[in-house]
């Protein structure tokens, strides 16, 4: 047996395309369900949340301005990168969740398939959700779904990887940017997923991943005036969910309540808003494009 000292990985946050430690300097120990200590993860603070929202805001307009085709290519690229590292992710899912290795690999493969699935949706959902409306006048009338902007997500607690990917992929597929609080007790696979995204040509700031206590950070994200949507699907505590929803109401956010997700189309529609445009029929060609 080698007496070599193993180099342990430091799990850091993923904010604005970089991997910072928490601004607060804090960290916390992450253990497997049987109590074995696995690693230390950064314990994000209110200010890390603020920085992440600023990074997400900065990235949002350019990301929404990319072609749907390119957004799909990048999501597909993330699936490719994940495929190559499936072994590592399966190990992390198995260790943190106390899952059998075979079952863990199935979770990772399901996550890869979900990424490919939503990569395919990027250039299709506008046709399915939007369209040309019949109107009684000489106008072209279109409705298109547009991204809401910055979405704060509390990722599922007990489904730390597949649930995370399912929360993030539909939001960014439609041109939103996200700030995600990974599962509090099982953040490792989500934090490693940041490395996959960073090497998938995904622009920095489109996905920002924080690890820490939902009860500490989420209230500030919920009340943040520059956050447009709030996904509470990972909030287990009903009172906390209610108070977060109340805080979000102050600043007019779209809120997704805890509970099982709907269909893919529901997930895509969740973080879009409809824009309807009237064009005088004879002017559409002169206008050159949609708007």
């Amino acid at each position, binding site marked *: 047996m080698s007496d070599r000292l193993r180099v342990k990985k430091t799990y850091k946050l993923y904010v604005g395309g970089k991997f910072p430690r928490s601004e607060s300097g804090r960290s916390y120990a992450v253990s497997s369900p049987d109590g074995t200590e696995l690693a230390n993860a950064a314990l994000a603070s209110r200010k890390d949340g*603020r920085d992440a*929202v600023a990074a997400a*805001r900065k990235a949002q307009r350019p990301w929404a301005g990319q072609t749907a085709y390119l957004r799909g290519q990048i999501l597909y690229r993330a699936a490719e990168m994940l495929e190559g590292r499936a072994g590592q992710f399966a190990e992390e899912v198995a260790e943190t969740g106390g899952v059998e290795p075979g079952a863990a690999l199935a979770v990772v493969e399901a996550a890869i398939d979900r990424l490919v699935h939503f990569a395919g949706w990027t250039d299709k959902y506008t046709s399915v959700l939007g369209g040309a409306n019949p109107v009684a006048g000489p106008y072209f009338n279109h409705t298109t779904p547009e991204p809401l902007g910055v979405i704060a997500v509390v990722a599922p607690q007990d489904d730390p990887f597949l649930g995370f990917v399912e929360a993030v992929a539909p939001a960014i597929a439609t041109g939103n940017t996200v700030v995600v609080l990974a599962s509090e007790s099982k953040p490792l696979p989500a934090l490693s997923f940041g490395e996959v995204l960073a090497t998938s040509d995904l622009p920095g700031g489109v996905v920002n991943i924080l690890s820490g206590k939902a009860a500490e950070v989420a209230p*500030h994200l919920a*009340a*943040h*005036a*520059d*956050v447009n949507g709030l996904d509470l699907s990972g909030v287990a505590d009903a009172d906390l969910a209610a108070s977060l929803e109340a*805080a979000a109401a*102050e*600043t007019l956010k779209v809120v997704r309540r805890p509970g099982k997700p709907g269909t893919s189309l529901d997930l895509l529609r969740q973080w879009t808003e409809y824009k309807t445009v009237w064009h005088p029929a004879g002017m559409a060609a002169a206008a050159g494009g949609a708007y």
Partner: protein
Amino acid sequence: MGSILSGAEAASLVRALPGVDAVGLEARAAGLATRSVKAESKAKAIDLAISMIDLTTLEGADTPGKVRSLASKAMRPDGDAPATAAVCVYPAMVAVAAEALQGSGVKVASVATGFPAGQVPLDIRLADTEAAVRAGADEIDMVISRGAFLAGDLERVFHEIKAVKAASGDARLKVILETGELVTYDDVRRASWLAMYAGADFIKTSTGKVGVNATLPVTLLMLQAVRDFRALTGTQVGVKPAGGIRNTKDAIKYLVCVNEVLGDDWLSNEWFRFGASSLLNDLLMQRQKLKTGHYSGPDYVTVD
């Protein structure tokens, strides 16, 4: 105040200034930048910083409409926030700004003297200044001839500042040193003193048009220069860092430096200004954060 010195006297005084301890200066600036200002003091600092802003637009694409909207924002930035100190525009836009700001107490500042390079003949630079004053400018932001300064012709720079001061009449004169082009701290110190000897009412770091704009160490050095100048001559001169100050944190660092080096005498918009445009929105967002308890965002301030 016009200068009583001759060009040769001023140049020799300036040449005799001691060199700057660059390491010490930067360490001092970095040390002051770590001060944390919280809660009520922060609220006061934010309002003070807003009241010190010369809200600036210096673009080829400036239109009367843009200047008017900037003027409205300067007079009433947001709810009960204080007005800014001035609106700073090109000479061609002074009349528009003066009309929009009439009676509001917000001053009209105009860049002049062939801004930003200053590489035009002196008679044209003086005519530029006179035209701005005639159109209603309360303050003139002139640029020095960096070319002459760097060539060692301090006397020419001195005489030009004196001439522009005379052409400005009652308007207060801010002298832009363009510290990014002077490069060394020694030259910043020399240029500061030269401008003050020639009758500057304010010394200002930068035009905002070159790569390096206001930095904390350079501003600290200029604050020390005005302190020493008052101790020596009894004349108080203001300081205006400009360019690159974009957020509340930076603005508060500058205020800490003013307080530490100069004290209360300079902590008003009579003697300290920020040349800025995007800084105002960040200050307003921080102000909203303190009022509402939650973070604000760019949707809650105007688009400039």
